């Protein structure tokens, strides 16, 4: 078994008791190590090469240390303290502790040569170098030169040491050195025996069991943490911050006013900080405390226990009350501090396959003294220094030191969980939070903002999008262009629409629009009526759209190729007063049907147009249907102000002018089509109509780009993926929009490489086509591609589940406010009330259902649908993350991951992939995915398909895929389970492999195994192999040898062995 894989299942503390063995029993050459000592060493076995348990004592001296005195000092310290001579040995039956005799414990002082990396980096490596439980001394010493002085450092293993020991040993070391250096004689050499902690009081065990009843650690995730990594490294980093004078004074004031110790005030604020970032509300924080008895108060050794402080955060409560309950929790915990956390870990229910600590992920440590004090050593100035071990056992640890003049926070964090940038923000928010809490100790915690100045600055600047929009309707903008064209001296009609060989002028287009209006009037259509447009894209459809507005009506775009049932539903639901249809299109049912006006049949208008605008900014402009989660499409109603703002924004951002040609590529029933249609009409450019097959084939798209010299075009990533290779050479210099789905980085790079100006746009139909837009740098498209910033007159915020705006880097639901927010859903007041709301100060907003976060520079990242974040067996899983990993495989062109089955019971993850060049790649994807994903997020099933089912808007139809996956599962389960022995060699091949995969899973006690899962690489060993072969014999009546398993350690491989054996029986060949 590789240790990386193994460590996934084992937490830093969470070591199953049976592996640790019985309680300590004294033995001839040592004693059985205690449970807490074994837990430390086991962690190192699971995460090899880590220095996570290494502590240090170090000081810097101005000048040179006397080597002989230093050596004598260290030697005497080791002779005096038995605990520093304590070593551990792994033996056949477990971990043993013994104390070396003084003459056996020969400590040399390493002379460090830091070279260009510098003394501190050298020391960090020195401290991080792992110790081993092989009987070797657990103390190392080194001296390194630094600037005008030297640094002395002792690295000591946690199993014989702790934080308080550091302070004690430093004091002793300094005093001994000074005595020896001055020629003095130290006191008599008495040996301090290692102190053993008394057995915990049974009452403490009861207390903790009661205290942690019903607790689940999976609620401790922060919304700014990274997805679980596939490999546990415990790599850590540290950030130091001195609290601002305002925060320090706030703490001192709260200490008096809230009548709580400073440590409790700081701890309670830490809990509020964590809760505001998603931990809890059933929150726990670990707090290391010394468990030395009064007489052992100054004993060196491993005598800490990390108390689990369970302090649920009720947001209706005020900080004053929260401090009170935190104080009580802390005091109670202190009274039962003798019960070791390592025993407590078994009390709490484990969730799923999570390897992580199941009691707490965040710790808080308070020391009312400086750790960097100055002193004098042999007449030279010296000061204590902190040397880190570059590891972290916890996701986040706040180590707070407090002196009369300042309070400092040392924030250590696990780099696979948190980014340094996020920790910097957390610390800054903590600083500001302390000031806020002191100001409002009696306000409900829900009302306390947990932002820092940078959050406000960056997000505020991204949302500073106000600008005037003029004219306030697209209709008025087009009319102005018609007037301008009429006034042109040439008298020629300015080209507006290019459709194959047809070139239609703007005044001709307007005339056709007026003719449409007249037909509508004749048909009795009035202001505010809905008029359905069911026609292919072309100048006639463009004119009809304008004609509907001229009639004061609202257009409903329908796609002729959609199923009749869907079209009928939309016509019925919208109550359309009339349907304008293109040539050759029929409409089912009794409806008022009008033909499209042929633009060639009208005479271009002359002179002024639109003396009176029939529509104002608040009149409805269009009604559009999107697929609803319930299965029935829902109509969204948008007004002219919405549309005018959007079109004006992109005319400005893309600098679209009279020399530009915009491609009308998208199906008209998909709202983004409206941008393609109106952008050129309002900015004086030309609209080029693309044929339908240009959405899926590169050649026709390339042709239309070339023929009409298109300068602006947009499509969904699905289209881009299909056409990019063939149109690549035609994209240079063009403005290209991609939106409607996440833009994979690979595709972004591919598009960027064509030399186009690439924009990633994002927005739901309910906030008018696009709400954010971001230019994608050719080089920077790495990892996740962001969606830029809010467009004009748009304010967005990322909301927590209570609707509060979240700061930078924190995940939540994206909400959009501003000019783009739709009127609401047509005839669906409950749905409108559920999805739209009012937020002070953002105003009316729409809840997108998308998971998002602000990047550090004020751009937005969309992390997938909220409903694509699932929880399986206690693990939070982002389906989008899995897809991103699969997409990074060179043979995978598209990936869609869905949950098959009931997530609360037996659900599994099913990945559908499109891999046209090599569909057989699915057999390798488990290993590939497992390389970057934890087991819990690695799909159990991979299916290669030619294409995904799509929604009407060219987006992946996930519900349809989920139904397919569930159906596959059901049919697999319903297939008669052939008796493998009866089936013999001719039996269903997959069936046998499946049986073996099942046995693998049962014996290795894990899911996610597949036909090529190596038994020994997934936790198997010889004895388990014996059990496996016995099970195989029961299932198949074939007796295989252990050697067979060693030769073919996968279900597929072993199945072949079984089959060979069965064939031999069938053909009468005796088994060898």
């Amino acid at each position: 078994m590789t240790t990386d894989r193994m460590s996934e299942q084992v937490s830093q503390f969470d070591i199953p008791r049976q592996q640790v063995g019985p309680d300590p029993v004294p033995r001839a050459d040592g004693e059985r190590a205690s449970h807490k000592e074994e837990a430390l060493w086991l962690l190192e076995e699971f995460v090899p090469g880590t220095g996570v348990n290494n502590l240090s004592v170090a000081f810097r001296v101005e000048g040179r240390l006397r080597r002989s005195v230093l050596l004598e000092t260290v030697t005497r310290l080791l002779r005096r303290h038995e605990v520093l001579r304590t070593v551990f040995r792994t033996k056949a039956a477990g971990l043993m502790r013994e104390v070396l005799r003084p003459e056996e414990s020969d400590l040399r002082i390493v002379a460090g040569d830091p070279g260009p990396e510098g003394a501190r980096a050298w020391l960090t490596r020195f401290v991080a170098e792992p110790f081993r439980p092989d009987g070797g001394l657990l103390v190392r010493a080194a001296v390194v030169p630094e600037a005008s002085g030297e640094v002395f450092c002792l690295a000591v293993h946690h199993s014989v040491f702790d934080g308080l020991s550091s302070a004690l040993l430093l004091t002793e070391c300094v005093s001994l050195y000074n005595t020896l250096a001055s020629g003095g004689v130290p006191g008599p050499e008495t040996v301090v025996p290692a102190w053993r902690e008394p057995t915990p009081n049974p009452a403490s065990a009861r207390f903790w069991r009661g205290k942690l009843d019903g607790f689940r650690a999976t609620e401790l995730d922060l919304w700014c943490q990274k997805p679980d990594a596939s490999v546990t490294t415990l790599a850590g980093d540290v950030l130091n911050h001195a609290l601002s004078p305002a925060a320090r004074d706030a703490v001192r004031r709260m200490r008096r006013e809230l009548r709580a110790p400073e440590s409790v005030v700081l701890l309670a604020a830490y809990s509020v900080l964590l809760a505001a970032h998603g931990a809890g509300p059933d929150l726990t924080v670990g707090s290391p405390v010394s468990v030395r008895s009064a007489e052992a108060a100054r004993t060196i050794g491993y005598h800490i226990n990390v108390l689990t402080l369970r302090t649920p955060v009720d947001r209706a409560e005020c900080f004053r009350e929260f401090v009170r309950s935190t104080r009580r929790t802390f005091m109670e915990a202190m009274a039962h501090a003798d019960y070791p956390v390592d025993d407590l870990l078994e009390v709490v229910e484990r969730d799923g396959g999570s390897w992580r600590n199941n009691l707490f992920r965040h710790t808080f440590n308070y020391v009312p003294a400086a750790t960097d004090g100055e002193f004098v050593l042999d007449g030279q100035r010296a000061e204590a220094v902190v040397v880190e071990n570059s590891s972290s056992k916890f996701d986040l640890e706040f180590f707070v030191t407090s002196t009369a003049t300042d309070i400092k926070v040392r924030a250590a964090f696990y780099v696979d969980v948190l980014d340094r940038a996020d920790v910097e923000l957390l610390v800054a928010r903590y600083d500001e939070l302390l000031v806020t809490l002191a100001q409002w100790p009696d306000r409900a915690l829900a009302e306390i903002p947990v932002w820092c100045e940078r959050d406000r600055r960056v997000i505020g600047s991204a949302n500073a999008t106000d600008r005037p929009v003029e004219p306030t309707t697209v209709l008025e903008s087009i009319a102005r262009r018609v007037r301008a064209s009429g006034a042109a001296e040439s008298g020629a009609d300015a080209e507006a629409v290019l459709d194959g060989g047809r070139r239609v002028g703007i005044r001709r287009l307007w005339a056709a629009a007026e003719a449409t209006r007249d037909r509508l009037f004749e048909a009795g259509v009035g202001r505010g009526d809905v008029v359905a447009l069911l026609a292919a894209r072309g100048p006639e459809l463009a004119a009809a759209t304008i004609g509907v507005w001229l009639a004061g009506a609202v257009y409903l775009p329908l796609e002729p190729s959609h199923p009749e049932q869907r079209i009928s539903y939309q016509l019925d639901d919208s109550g359309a007063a009339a349907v304008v249809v293109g040539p050759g299109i029929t409409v089912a049912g009794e409806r008022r049907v009008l033909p499209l006006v042929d633009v060639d049949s009208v005479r271009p208008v002359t002179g002024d147009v639109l003396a009176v605008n029939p529509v104002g900014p608040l009149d409805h402009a269009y009604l559009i249907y999107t697929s609803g989660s319930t299965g029935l499409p829902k109509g969204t109603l948008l007004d002219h102000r919405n549309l005018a703002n959007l079109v004006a924004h992109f005319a400005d951002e893309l600098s679209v002018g009279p020399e530009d040609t915009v491609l009308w590529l998208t199906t008209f029933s998909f709202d983004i089509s409206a941008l393609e249609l109106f952008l050129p009409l309002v900015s004086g450019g030309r609209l080029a109509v693309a044929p339908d097959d240009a959405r899926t084939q590169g050649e026709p798209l390339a042709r239309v780009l070339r023929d009409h010299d298109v300068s602006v075009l947009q499509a969904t990533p699905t289209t881009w993926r299909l056409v990019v290779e063939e149109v690549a050479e035609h994209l240079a210099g063009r403005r290209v929009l991609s939106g409607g789905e996440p833009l994979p980085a690979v595709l972004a790079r591919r598009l960027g490489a064509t030399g186009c100006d690439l924009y990633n746009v994002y927005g739901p139909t309910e906030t008018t086509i696009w709400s954010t837009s971001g230019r994608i740098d050719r080089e920077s498209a790495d990892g996740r591609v962001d969606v830029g910033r809010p467009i004009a007159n748009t304010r967005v915020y990322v909301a927590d589940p209570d609707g509060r705006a979240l700061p930078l880097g924190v995940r939540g639901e994206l909400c959009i406010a501003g000019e783009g927010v739709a009127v609401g859903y047509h005839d669906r007041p409950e749905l409108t009330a559920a999805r739209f709301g009012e937020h002070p100060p953002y105003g009316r907003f729409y809840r997108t259902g998308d998971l998002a976060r602000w990047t550090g520079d004020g751009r937005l990242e969309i992390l997938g649908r909220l409903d694509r974040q699932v929880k399986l067996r206690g693990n939070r899983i982002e389906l989008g993350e899995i897809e991103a990993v699969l997409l990074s495989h060179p043979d995978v062109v598209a990936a869609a991951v869905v949950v098959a089955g009931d997530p609360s019971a037996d659900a599994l993850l099913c990945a559908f992939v499109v891999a046209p060049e090599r569909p057989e790649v699915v057999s390798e994807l488990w290993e590939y995915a497992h390389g970057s994903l934890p087991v819990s997020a690695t799909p159990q099933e991979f299916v290669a398909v030619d294409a995904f089912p799509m929604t009407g808007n060219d987006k992946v139809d996930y519900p349809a895929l989920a139904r397919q996956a569930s159906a596959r599962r059901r049919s697999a389960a319903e297939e008669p389970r052939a008796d493998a022995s009866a089936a013999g060699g001719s039996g269903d091949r997959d069936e046998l492999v499946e049986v073996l995969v099942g046995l693998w899973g049962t014996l290795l006690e894990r899911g996610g195994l597949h036909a090529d899962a190596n038994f020994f690489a997934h936790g198997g060993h010889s004895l388990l192999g014996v059990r496996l072969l016995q099970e195989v014999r029961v299932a198949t009546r074939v007796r295989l040898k252990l050697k067979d398993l060693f030769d073919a350690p996968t279900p597929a491989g072993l199945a072949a062995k079984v089959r060979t054996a069965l064939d031999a029986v069938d053909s009468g060949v005796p088994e060898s």
Partner: protein
Amino acid sequence: MNLNTTWTTLRSSSKATVSGGSDELILCADFHTTGRPEAGFAELVARLDHDATFWHVNPPVVAPDSGTAAPAYVRSWLEPVRAQGAPVRAVFGYCVGAVYAAALADELALVQEEAPQVLLFDPEPTAMATIRHQFGNVFGMLSSILVEEDVAETEGEVERLIRVEGMTVGNYAAQLYTTFRRVGERAFERAGLDQEYGAEMWALFSSFLSYLSFADGLDPRDRWLTSTALSSSGEYNGLNRLRGTGELGGGELVAREIRFEAGHGDLLRSDGVAQTVGKLLER
């Protein structure tokens, strides 16, 4: 005693003829079991460009207490090599395998025109501590079916035997194997596991313990003094260990040592090591 050693072909030379002959054969000595975390020669060979046929030994199944002498044990390895007929260009040995590499080279030097080149990877002789450590690993696999009494009995034996006056490596391995069988069979019976499989497990472990202990009957020092060693950064492995413990006395141990950053477990999967081996073989 019939000692049956076989070799696995890790890779065939491109010049290998249909009859299986090859103009260059390289032998790899190591005890490799599936699932072992340390990289094996298969991983090194996969990274080598050198064109030769590489063979990996499968040491014979023989109990440590069978009375087999180390030279006979090594000669059994050479039977298939001689039958094959091609000259051996080089011998590789990893860890304790380096002792066997030396012994194989000594034997081959007598019958070949040119003695094979010897490359030692973290060479180590067997020590009582090695046996104890490896025995602990093997025994640990049974932990889930052991009761406290089994553990106490075995552990008592492990620690008692090592202190017995005049205990040798071979004797120690043999005694431990007896204990292991006794306790293991009892545990298998109690757990309702088939003794047939038990026999296979005992066979596997006996060949492993024999491999470890028979190495003590061989003296690799002269051959090592003319060979090249490739050392990992592992403080407790190979020459690093020998220099620390002084087991083989002071002074030079090999003709040349090349040191690598890789740890003991990664030595044979290190690209740097493979490159160096490639260059060494070119000479």
